[in-house]
């Protein structure tokens, strides 16, 4: 990866250190199922970001797929069936 020289990003009022970003990246790491089992800090920041992107994309794909299935369900729903009453009771 990169050299270990410390880097601070200065721009106007805010000053961000590499440590701050590393800290947040490790927090992000704990949210990704791919890395939750691995307790070590050996995962590189760029790998975490990459996996985060992959994970977000897979979730978005799943939203699309689930929407299709919901659409089919809504199409096949009878007016006074069990499904409709379940939805109604969930809304109470």
């Amino acid at each position, binding site marked *: *990866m*990169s050299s270990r020289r410390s*880097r601070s*990003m200065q*721009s*106007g009022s*805010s000053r*961000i250190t590499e440590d*701050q*970003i590393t800290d*947040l*990246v490790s*927090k*992000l790491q704990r*949210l990704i199922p791919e890395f939750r089992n691995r307790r070590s800090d050996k995962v590189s*920041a*760029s790998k*975490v*970001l*990459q996996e*985060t*992107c992959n*994970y*977000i*994309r897979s*979730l*978005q794909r*799943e*939203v*699309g797929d*689930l*929407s*299709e*299935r*919901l*659409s*089919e*369900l*809504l*199409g*096949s*729903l*009878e007016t006074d*069936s*069990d*499904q409709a009453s*379940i*939805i109604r009771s*969930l*809304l109470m």
Partner: protein
Amino acid sequence: MKTPSNSIKRRFALKFLRTLVRIRKSTHQPSPSQSSTWEIRRRAQRIKLAAYSSMARTVGSKRAWSRALTMKLRAAMGNRPWSMIKQESKKMTRRKLIAKRKRHMEKDLNSGVQELRRLVPGGQWMDPLSLMQETAHFLRCLETQVRVMRSIVAEGEGFPC
């Protein structure tokens, strides 16, 4: 770092279900014939937008990503909030400049951060720190959204017609 709670799950589920009922009412065919593939696909698109919009409304204006998503969805759904977009972009101009400068410095993390900026609503204009924080919250909400949708589908598919 704040993370979404169970109340977000409940409030999202309620909003989303209400929208589903509305969508069904407006697209339901009185005849027993099946909806066409095209109708199913079109309704699926509405459901997808409803899911994201319900989550954005649940989170409200508290997070930058939910504000950005709300604006994006309004544009997608045909409202013309050009005045709102112009206002927001005036605020964003200085932030954009700062963000642009910082992007030049994100050499090693570059490709990952750039991609993340595209995936997280409003990510283009965030500084790296905020981007990480917003990503974490956005991710948790997206997971919640998927979990709720999965359970609704499971309920629906679990009952054969």
